[in-house]
């Protein structure tokens, strides 16, 4: 039986204390109800716990975490998955700005749209490859300063029919990792030193692995997602900013 908590009467610092104590005592399944604006939930937690959240968690959900799997039935605010290291955040709604900021491992699956600067400063090392999959559309500066990892932008489940798939300055400052886009983006949207490329076999494998997992999380049909062509956006030189300060 998971531990169920109604957190609406409590300040976030109290909720986090209760969560930590419960996890310390060996609780591995938690259900939080009445969440609204509670900050830093599960931040820094390194145990493999499964957490269901009902409501709108506050800023920096799962920041620095290393292990938990968080499923949010609602929207997440800014900074979800900030510098997370391992684990997973599954969001059944939409997400705010700077989701996955400096993320270094684990996965973030968003059903709907995301805000600005998602995946900013993402990085990868050896086997640690962070992944963000966005089911809807993204604001400007997606993957800004990205150094590693994978961002997949689907544009399928969006509340904003009038907006473009991705905003301006896509991947500005990006020098590693890859952004996969289902559909097309204009080259004028891309940051300096980036180009869209068609997928290679290796890319298709990566996409299929991640999208299969994504579709399972939301009960979607993988073949529907793969119906359309994807583009891969990467820097076209090894060190696009190598001479920025040395010319």
């Amino acid at each position, binding site marked *: 039986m998971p531990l169920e908590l109604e957190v609406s009467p409590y300040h976030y610092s109290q909720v986090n204390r209760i969560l930590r104590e419960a996890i310390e005592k060996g609780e591995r399944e938690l259900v939080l109800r009445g969440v609204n*604006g509670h900050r830093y939930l599960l931040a820094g937690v390194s145990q493999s716990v499964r957490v269901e959240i009902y*409501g709108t968690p506050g*800023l920096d959900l799962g920041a620095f975490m290393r292990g938990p799997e968080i499923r949010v039935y609602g929207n997440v*605010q800014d900074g979800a998955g900030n510098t997370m290291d391992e684990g997973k955040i599954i969001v059944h709604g939409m997400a*705010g700005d700077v989701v996955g900021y400096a993320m270094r491992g684990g996965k973030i699956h968003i059903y709907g749209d995301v*805000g*600005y600067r998602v995946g900013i400063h993402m990085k990868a090392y050896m086997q640690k490859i962070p992944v963000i999959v966005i089911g809807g559309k993204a604001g400007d500066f997606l993957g800004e300063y990205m150094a590693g990892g994978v961002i997949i932008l689907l544009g399928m489940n969006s509340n904003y029919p009038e907006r473009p798939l991705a905003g301006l300055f896509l991947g500005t400052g990006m020098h590693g990792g890859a952004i996969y886009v289902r559909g097309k983006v204009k080259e004028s949207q891309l940051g300096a030193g980036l180009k869209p490329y068609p997928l290679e076999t290796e890319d298709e494998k990566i996409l299929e692995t991640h999208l299969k997992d994504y579709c399972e999380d939301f009960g979607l049909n993988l073949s529907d997602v793969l119906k359309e062509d994807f583009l891969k956006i990467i820097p076209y030189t090894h060190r696009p900013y190598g001479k920025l300060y040395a010319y």
Partner: protein
Amino acid sequence: MWNLTTLGREVSGCGISGIIHRKGEPISGQMIIKSICCQYERGNGLGAGFAAYGIYPDFKDYYALHVMAQSKEALEKVEDFLQRRTFLTFQEPIPTRKVKTIHNPPLFKRYFVKPRVEGEESCGLFAEEEQMVQIVMEINEKIEGAYVISSGKNMGAFKGVGFPDEIAEFFRVDEYRAYIWTAHNRFPTNTPGWWGGAHPFTLLDWSIVHNGEISSYGTNRRYLELFGYKCTLLTDTEVVAYALDLLIRKLGLPLELACKAMAPPFWMEIDEMEEEERELYSALRILYGGAVLNGPFAILFAYNGGLVGLNDRVKLRPLVAASKGDLYFMGSEEAAIRSICPDPERVWAPKAGEPVIIEMEEGAIPNQKSYLKVRPKEVREDALRIRSIPLSLFTS
């Protein structure tokens, strides 16, 4: 009490919240208090404030001057000045409560006035408002230790140094009912908080709450001074209030274009526009360059008839909007909205630089204003009309 020489420009990371009822039905102050207090951690106790519209129905045709003063003497000077320059119909102290954590608050009094325009009591709205702007500027600039913190009809600002719950308690905000509310929770990072530096900033019925930093403050200030606006409150947000007044009320720009003048599209975006649009935005950037707000900001501004949310062009501060029926909400965080409306019909994140404009239904409130359309030329003879600028100006 206020050693203003030590104060400079303010840089802040704050929380904002706003509510409007499109049919003009009154909303309890308790609602906006709850919403801004949901974002408690966005402030640090150095400033909070509220703007409320529709709170003085008995004096709806008079300008309600909320005056903050350091001393009785300063208030007397204000009163002398008002006797000379306005028809003063009613005055009273602004009701306050004692709050343990608020020490030595300034004096607050409200005056309901109409300006004397060349001795006449009635004149056109534009002339009357011009006169009110002059009166406010003169008090703020010339009467030491006294500031007008709001000056619109049927509205008022309540602000000071403290957390939002403390300021709400102090000014008895829970006892007011308004059809538009905005609120601010301040986190000044560059300057000490002082009562005049709290948000909202106002002029006439414009009120602004702001999260961010107007790094173009100097440019904006010099630009506004050309038109007679005096920046006396030492906080960057003040320029936004005056810029709105200049662009919309004086120069007659439709609201959306005024927002685009303050947060214009990038030239690279303009380059990709269709010809007509490209000319319009080029003109806007050329003509109103001095009004461009640079730096990170999310602002909410209100007037008698509308509530508007606006982000800087690259969305460096958060802003969320939501609606349920005739109620519209905006805030720094979605949670702030859900704390007072758990089940909104629509929640969305406004795009950078694109204003969210919610105007009330026509005829919903007295002295209602609407700025959605270009107003007829006779209303603003000296206005710069963007459509009448010769196209030859834009051959680049």
